[in-house]
């Protein structure tokens, strides 16, 4: 519980209606230690952060709260939901400026009208439109979250408002690296991003999808001109990766999403039962690992050219098209789901209520895929024991920036309230992470393994990071990085990079 005088001071800043530590609020935010504050502006964020510094009470911030890792001591949560304005869309310079409470579906809707789109995290368009980190389905065109952020307004852990990149020198949002300070790596260590510009990209599709039907099956009666969706499976991972690279090099795909069959199945079905039945059908047809491709032509000749190149690549790599996806109804369903990114919840949560993921962002090829193939084997063992959802255990991923970069991932869907299921998944995560280090395959994201274990493998970066943190956050109360397993409060079983034991300072 916060000191009452502190609570009163926060009330004066945001108004009594925008702060609460009531038990019901604590339950809704999944922490017995939380006091939730709803700031409405950068100035209010700054004022609350300064109060936190004054009382030396830690704070965290969240945009939409999809993934939240509550600390185990009294803290202030800045829920930035009220900061929900799209500040600017600059079509000429191709960026959009948003506050954290804007969700990607909202920004994309406005961008579509202008022939533009944006990067959307794989978690879904229900999450913040801010770039931040996070990779998504359209990455082959829109790159990764952390390569999309431009100028940024940032409240430091001490409560100073810093404008980064071109914003600091010219008041313009077009660049994250200057003229002016570039602290793009630093801002992920804490503080609160209150406004940010994100890059936007050309969208050759309609200004909106004229959908018919009703939930949970909205239908696009007519496929937009010059669009095609296909799913290809391959005889081996090598062949699949070869195809990915060739598609990237030829720059023909709008989207290349390495769905495993269960993700395709979840996307195109409207209930669990239908999902499991459909998956069995898909598994009969696929010959091995695969991906979904969306071709989007700017005009008929462009479309024809891209299709022909794709055809050639698929031929060269022995790819096989999944017939069910060639059905126009399924094809258009995938098109809308995978460009508006509205099906991630089906993929991850519908079956068991939670998922635990292992991912590597930035790379895909060779080592990472090999590592997660091992993880898939370990997962299949859990499937056999009935401890995670039976989805055949595939890893998945996708090419980004025309295959300069990539993303590789595997997740276990499970029931967080089934003790055996939860324990098995936690153990699987730990083993897969340890294997990443032992085999020199990858560096698991912070928080999965103790920092003392990971840091030395990364030039003791954690020690340097501590110094930076100390400089920006001398009271050590700022938004500490962490990593949660989405949908379940199991993160306390893992060691966050900056998680401290015991009471707050």
């Amino acid at each position: 519980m916060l000191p009452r005088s502190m609570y009163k001071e926060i009330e004066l800043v945001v108004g009594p209606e925008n702060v609460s530590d009531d038990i019901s609020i604590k339950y809704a935010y999944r922490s017995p230690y939380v006091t939730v504050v709803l700031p409405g502006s950068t100035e209010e964020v700054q004022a609350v952060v300064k109060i936190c510094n004054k009382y030396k009470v830690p704070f965290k911030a969240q945009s939409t709260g999809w993934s939240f890792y509550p600390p185990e001591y009294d803290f202030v949560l800045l829920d930035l939901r009220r900061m929900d304005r799209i500040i600017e869309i600059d079509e000429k310079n191709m960026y959009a400026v948003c506050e954290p409470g804007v969700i990607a579906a909202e920004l994309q809707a406005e961008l579509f009208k202008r022939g533009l789109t944006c990067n959307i995290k794989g978690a879904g368009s229900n999450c913040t439109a801010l770039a931040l980190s996070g990779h998504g389905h359209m990455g082959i065109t829109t790159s990764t979250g952390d390569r999309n952020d431009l100028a940024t307004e940032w409240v430091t852990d001490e409560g100073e408002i810093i404008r980064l990149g071109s914003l600091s020198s010219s008041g313009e949002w077009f660049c994250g690296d200057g003229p002016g300070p570039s602290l793009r790596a630093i801002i992920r260590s804490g503080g609160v991003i209150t406004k940010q510009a994100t890059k936007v990209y050309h969208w050759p599709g309609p200004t909106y999808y004229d959908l018919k039907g009703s939930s949970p099956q909205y239908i696009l009666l007519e496929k937009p001109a010059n669009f095609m969706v296909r799913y290809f499976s391959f005889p081996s991972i090598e062949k699949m990766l070869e195809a990915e690279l060739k598609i990237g090099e030829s720059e023909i795909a709008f989207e290349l999403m390495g769905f495993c069959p269960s993700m395709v199945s979840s996307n195109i079905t409207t209930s669990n039962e239908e999902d499991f039945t459909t998956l069995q059908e898909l598994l009969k047809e696929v010959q091995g690992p695969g991906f979904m491709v969306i071709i989007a032509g700017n005009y008929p000749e462009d479309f024809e050219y891209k299709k022909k190149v794709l055809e050639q690549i698929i031929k060269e790599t022995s790819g096989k098209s999944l017939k069910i996806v060639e059905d126009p109804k399924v094809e258009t369903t995938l098109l809308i789901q995978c460009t508006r990114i509205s099906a991630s919840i089906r993929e991850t949560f519908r079956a068991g209520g939670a998922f635990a993921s292992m991912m590597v962002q930035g790379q895909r090829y060779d080592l990472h895929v090999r590592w997660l193939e091992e993880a898939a084997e370990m997962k299949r063992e859990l499937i056999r024991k009935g401890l995670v959802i039976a989805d055949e255990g595939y890893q998945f991923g996708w090419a980004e920036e025309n295959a300069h970069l990539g993303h590789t991932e595997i997740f276990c869907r499970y029931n967080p309230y089934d003790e055996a299921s939860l324990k098995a998944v936690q153990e699987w995560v730990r083993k897969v992470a340890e294997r990443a280090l032992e085999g020199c395959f990858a560096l698991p994201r912070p928080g999965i393994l103790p920092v003392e274990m990971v840091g030395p493998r990364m030039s003791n970066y954690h020690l340097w990071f501590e110094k930076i943190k100390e400089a920006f956050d001398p009271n050590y109360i700022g938004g500490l990085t962490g990593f949660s397993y989405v949908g379940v409060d199991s993160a306390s079983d893992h060691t966050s990079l900056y998680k401290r034991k015991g009471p707050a300072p």
Partner: protein
Amino acid sequence: MAIEDYEGDMKMCCRCSACKYIPLQMIRHSKFSDVCPSIARYNFHAYSGGGKLLIGREMLAKGFEYTDRFLHIVFNCLLCGACDVSCKYAMDMEVLLPISELRMKCVENGNTHPTFEKVINLLRSKGKMVEGEGKRSEWAEGLNIKDVRREKVEVYYHAGCLSSYNKEYHHIPRTVAKMLKEAGVNFGIAYEGEICCGGRAHEMGYREDFFNQAMKNVEIVKRSGARVIVTSCAHCYHAFKVLYDRYGFKEFEVLHITELLEKLIKEGRIKIRNSLALNVTYHDPCYLGRLGEAWIHFKGKKLPGIKFVFDPPKTYRRGAHGVYNPPREVLRMIPGLKIYEMERKKEYAWCCGAGGGVSESNPDFALWTAERRLEEAMETGATVIVTACPWCEQMLKKAVASRGVDLQVWDVVEVVERTI
């Protein structure tokens, strides 16, 4: 039914926030992306559908603490079901039902809203849910309608409390009665014998009072000989069609007046004689639309294992099969009239503010909600908002008055009346 029955559903909430927005694919404008008035107004996650599930889940496990904030959250839910639709776009779980049970739990344990208590006392003493002097059947004066207390009929018309006791809405049942007469429908009303359907009592959390009303209404209908109940109120429609069925009271067909009008016009029994050069937008009442979907009786068990699936497979009510087309079809049959749809429509329509008894318990919030709907209606360029429920009409009219805008609010029957 109790909140305990939905423990599994509440545990399925993954905190994705889908319940706050219209189905994501349908978002066309950042201004009209919200779907839940409660979270849109109060912003704490606790006010969202998912937030309430998390609270319910925790309180079920750790004990109920009836704090002011908790009760504010519970009683400032419009129970409009929008969260339920948006969640079920992706998930297989109940959302609205546990939220409704959460409120029931509060009321059953004596933690009600004082305004609700007042309204329910009115129901218990006078069989009505709204203030207002005068006779219940005042609207029917001079129409010479059959009295079901004495005569057998095929159709029992239930006007509902608001249309009966608020003179401003007498035009709705009067017009309905005139049209049914013109169409030669053998119908009657219960005059002073009509009593509240109990639907809004159920919304407010008073299940026992709902049961009392249901039992009495079943008797009225049985005695009338009618096999069909027709109502022009969305809340009554929901009560008779969905709740009576859910709790085993339904022994008759239930039609909303727009469903019957569509049929009668198509059969030529009501003739559209005049054109109406009018640009309208249609507001879907929640209790007629997404919540008007028939009840699905389900008796199954969750299968053992980690998947949230049932034996036999559970068919969820996802809001898609409510009464959406009949009112639109009736409007489409009027020459000269053009419908301009709002962005949020049908199963993901924004509530008018009257749901869940909030128009009584928190009129400011109800008005705020209605004003948001008004803004959306105005964007269509329509000059008239047409709806099919007196409660919606009331809220939208309040919003028009509050904003001082030049927009009219009509019921569907009022539109038809001008053409016959």
